[in-house]
């Protein structure tokens, strides 16, 4: 796991852009989604849905526009990011449409389609308008202020399902906390890029641990604490876990100090213990995780986690097939937090592994861009954004599959929920931007000790 820190050879003059590959993959992604849509129709009504073609055309058009934006504005961007995002979004739409068939009075797919369009539009806007990710460096404090505002606003609104994370505007309900993730990542990247040396090499040592000076460390700690407090007030455990993980990873990457991990773990343990004892809401989540079948033994029927596990196990290796499962038994959160259970039941272990690997590929591509970039801000931003996705996927997938306690969080791109979808499209847009910069053949300046991207072998 150690990397050579030799001075890099001059980069290859002509790195392939791979936009053609992206287009082919996009076509495949759209086709897979349309096939899934058709499969649901064939299973449920023994006929291909009448609007299958228009669904394909719509998704294809969105993909094409996004592709064109990338082709024009970020020609060197990683060719995998956009197709995977389109595929995940397409599969998510199919799954939600499939669940809508069980709840005719409550259709979520059309809304999700609108949000998808909005997400892609935002993606295009970011790719087109943000010429260089380093522009964001100057907005660190602005974004953290915005993030805190976004997190505080929902406290004024009524709680939904025990969590105060929504604001309602007319018919729309928005989760501002979702957007705050990206803003916070931008802030952390900007702040740490400037201060990482100060954080690493100043301050006193206690018990062999290098502690940073308070002057540098205080702002970060303050902002982090404020955000965690807000989250506890809003009872949104998942997001607080995400911020925490993001904070630790970025701090570690910026400073290179393992002590951060240790301190983080101690803080996490303390925080978890405190919250677990103060919050009955959190406590019950932990109990559900430890004893998912307790409600059955008590004669109250299966709880959400038990129902979710039943769905996954019913899928087995190959799945029941789209439209043949009964994941709707999970109840009201089947389309949002538990969307993965539908994938697990109807696509089986095979489909689930494929989905996990798709997410892993996005994360890997983000990390790869981070490795190849030369400016600390860009590196930290890439790592931060990729880590947001990684942590989100782990926390929610682990939660619905009984690996860790369940925390309310949306499966990126799959789950019902406009805010999450749009946010993830912005994350992908930013990753496209940094990967374009990373793979661009004429770097402006090479920092010492930074590895220049290794040219991929043409496959």
């Amino acid at each position, binding site marked *: *796991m*150690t990397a050579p*820190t030799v001075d890099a050879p001059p980069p290859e003059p002509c790195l392939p852009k791979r936009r053609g590959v992206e287009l082919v993959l996009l076509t495949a992604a759209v086709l897979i989604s349309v096939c899934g849509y058709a499969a649901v129709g064939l299973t449920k009504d023994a006929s291909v849905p009448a609007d299958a073609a228009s669904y394909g055309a719509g998704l294809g058009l969105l993909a094409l526009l996004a592709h064109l934006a990338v082709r024009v504005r970020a020609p060197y961007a990683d060719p995998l990011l956009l197709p995977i995002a389109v595929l995940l979004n397409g599969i998510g739409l199919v799954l939600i449409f499939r669940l809508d068939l069980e709840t005719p009075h409550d259709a979520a797919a059309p809304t999700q389609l609108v949000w998808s369009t909005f997400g892609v539009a935002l993606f295009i806007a970011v790719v087109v308008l943000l010429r260089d990710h380093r522009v964001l460096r100057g907005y660190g404090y602005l974004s953290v202020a915005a993030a805190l505002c976004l997190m505080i606003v929902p406290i004024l609104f009524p709680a939904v399902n025990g969590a105060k994370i929504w604001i309602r505007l007319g018919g729309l309900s928005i989760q501002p906390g979702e957007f705050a993730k990206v803003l916070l990542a931008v802030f952390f990247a900007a702040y740490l890029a400037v201060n990482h040396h100060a954080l690493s090499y100043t301050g006193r040592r206690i018990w062999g641990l290098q502690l940073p000076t308070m002057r540098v460390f205080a702002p970060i700690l303050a902002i982090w604490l404020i955000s965690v407090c807000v989250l506890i007030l809003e009872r949104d455990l998942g997001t607080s876990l995400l911020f925490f993980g993001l904070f630790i990873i970025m701090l570690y990457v910026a400073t290179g100090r393992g002590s951060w991990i240790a301190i983080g773990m101690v803080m996490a343990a303390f925080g978890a213990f405190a919250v677990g004892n103060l919050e009955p809401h959190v406590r019950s989540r932990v109990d559900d995780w430890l004893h998912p079948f307790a409600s059955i033994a008590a004669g109250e029927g299966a709880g959400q986690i*038990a129902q979710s596990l*039943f769905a996954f196990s019913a899928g087995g290796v190959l799945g029941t097939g789209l439209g043949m499962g009964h994941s709707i038994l999970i109840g009201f959160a089947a389309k949002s937090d538990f969307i993965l259970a539908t994938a697990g039941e109807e696509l089986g272990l095979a489909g689930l592994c494929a989905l996990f690997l798709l997410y892993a590929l996005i994360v*890997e591509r983000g*990390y790869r861009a981070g490795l190849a970039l030369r400016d600390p801000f860009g590196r930290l931003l890439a790592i931060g954004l990729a880590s947001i996705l990684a942590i989100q996927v782990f926390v929610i997938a682990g939660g619905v599959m009984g690996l860790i306690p369940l925390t309310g969080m949306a499966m990126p791109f799959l789950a019902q929920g406009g805010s999450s979808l749009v946010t993830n499209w912005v994350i992908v847009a930013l990753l496209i931007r940094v990967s374009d910069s990373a793979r661009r053949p004429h770097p402006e300046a090479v920092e010492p*000790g930074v590895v220049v991207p290794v040219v991929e072998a043409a496959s």
Partner: protein
Amino acid sequence: MTRCIRRAAACCLLLLIALLGNAARVQVVQADSLDTNQANRRPVITRYGQPRGNILVDGKAVTGSKDTGEQLRFERAYRDGPLYAPVTGYASQTYGTALVENAEDGILSGEDARLAPFPLWNELTRTQEPGGDVATTIKARVQEAAYYGLDGRRGAVAAVEPSTGRILALVSSPSYDPGQISGTGPRAAGNWAKLNRLSSRPMLDRAIRETYPPGSAFKIVTAAAALESGAVSDIDEDTGTPDPYILPGTSTELPNEAEGCANATLSYAIEASCNTVLAGLGVRVGLGGMAGTARKFGFNDSGLRIPSAVARSNFDTDMSEDQLALSSIGQFNTTATPLQMAMVSAAVANGGVLMRPHLIDRTLDHNGATIRRTEDSTYSRVMDDSTAEQLQQMMAAVVTEGTGSNAAIPGATVGGKTGTAQNGLHNSGTPYAWFISWAQADDAARPAVAVAVVVEDASAHRADISGGGFAAPIAKAVMEAALED
């Protein structure tokens, strides 16, 4: 920084491996225990996700399936529910299954492995075959005759074909419509509660699940034991029994309802239904002989299945002589299901060979191909041909000259035996009216049907309850229907 990024990436890889490993754990390793968890509704949803196979009478379905469009999609429906309830039982999404619906549930629901052409393939793909059908031995015309004969009065009818053991009719009255409790929700729950609350107990299958004192109808068993044991060698010889008969070891007198029973012959005693003669013969045969013969007829067999379990008919195997005397005329602790009494009649009609009663003729897959046929089998050899012949003569005389004249059918030989069983302590309850009989068309080689009818009508006058008056006309209608085929 680069090294840290690589390490962070390695952490993400660990998270991925944890997710993949956990997915395999839930979906493969623990799958079986999760799939069979009692709270997992999937097996139930699968079960009701397809129409249930049908129960056939005369090759026509008396059941159906109703598509409710709800989560448990197909609900059991019944054509002529009350008529066939004692045969079909119920198949309820809330309360489970009973009788044939229960005994052949695997075939009807499609879960039976024999329905699948390639069982291993079905295991792998987790598919379920369409439900198969169950053809019963019931004859609609006979069943209807019995049901409308009882006409809502409390009672039961069992009819079997003596030479095969095929059950031609099983009726319990008052009946209920099993379709009322097929589904889920308040309607089914309300109906269930109401049916269980009613004092008439419509859900009790009186034909095979209720036992009654058989009264004088049991005298056929006693007569068979007397002839088999040699206690009586000639049915037209005086038996030398006094009237009234003093129960052995007591000073209790046993009276007769009939005239001319003192020292009567066995044939007259059966014809006129003399208590004294048969009580005395029972004592003379002895406990061992009586219990042995009763056992051959099917009494004391708690393992009888048709394929549903039949309640155990009882003849005590440990009692004093006075109790034996009373038991021998179908009182004391002697009890019988209507099916058991039909078996008694059938054994006599079939020359002493009792065929095992059965209700299922064959099971079919959804294409109509036979999966399993029920072969006729012998339950026991109860008595010699000669004994059976003598009993047939005596039973025929009951109809031609005795208490069973209401059952006579022109163009057929009918043998019968009436019974009026005391009910309750000191005969305080309404007695039950019994009639057991068999019929053979004059041009037929063997008897077509053996019937047992019991009527327990609490609303009737006590004096009017007699096997001949109440039960014999019903038996006659049932036999006529059976003879028509």
